[in-house]
């Protein structure tokens, strides 16, 4: 039997991936605004802030720094010296469960 490009088993695999993406999406996502900002570095909570109080704080580790800004009920990483800048391009977050991840600096900002 010659291997096909797309078989019935493949369609089941594709549907399985789509279904798991949907299940995870709906179990994690919330349309409600959070009120706490939790910052973790290397899996340890290093700071917790109120999302409704404006703040400008820089987190420095031996890997580098990330500048966190909280204003008008949302938070963002304004500047950082990681090489990919994904944390900055993530933009503002405010909903429960949303997070900003900076993998090079092992830092996560999460809304709770």
């Amino acid at each position, binding site marked *: 039997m010659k291997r096909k490009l797309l078989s019935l088993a493949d369609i089941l695999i594709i549907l399985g991936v789509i279904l798991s993406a949907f299940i995870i999406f709906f179990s994690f996502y919330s349309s409600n605004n959070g009120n706490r900002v939790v910052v973790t570095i290397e899996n340890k909570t290093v700071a917790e802030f109120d999302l409704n109080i404006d703040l400008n704080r820089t987190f420095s580790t031996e890997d580098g720094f990330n500048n966190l800004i909280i204003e008008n009920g949302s938070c963002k990483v304004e500047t950082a010296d990681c090489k990919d800048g994904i944390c900055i391009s993530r933009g503002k977050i405010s909903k429960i469960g949303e997070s900003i991840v900076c993998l090079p600096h092992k830092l*996560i900002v999460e809304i709770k």
Partner: protein
Amino acid sequence: MIYMKALSSKKITIYALFTAASILFGYVEYLLPLNFIAPGVKLGMANGIFLVLLLSGNFGAAFIINVVRILLSALLFATPFSLLFSLSAGIVSSLFMWVLSKSKRVGFIGISVAGGAAHNITQLLIARLTVGGGVWFYTPFLLVTGLIAGMAVGFLSWLVFGRIKNLFKKI
């Protein structure tokens, strides 16, 4: 362990060519980053090389070329921390695709998509252990982008396989 007998010079040449091509694919992806969508998003074109070798019955070569590619790419563009992600995900997804390929019922696209999902989930697990729980937020994005990329790579490797499958018969 996998190769007890000596490789023919033709095999050495072909494997070297495949290794070089897979590093080049990695470089193209490095120049065209897609990870602004979510950390870790990429096309995974090098997986096409793995698939072509695996499905022509050369799992040993496919696996070694994949590991060599990851180590050499790490020297060129990565850090020890990102090597932890790429190497573990590369090994897990290679073994997963090898197991799936045992069944002829699974097609090119199915193996490629499952390998992409295994790759992304391994990286998420490593990130969960080293960085923290917030990384789970990206799971649905990585699954969906990995699905699209996996289908494209599966289709490409099917095209390439049709053209070069006879290459492996005479070596």
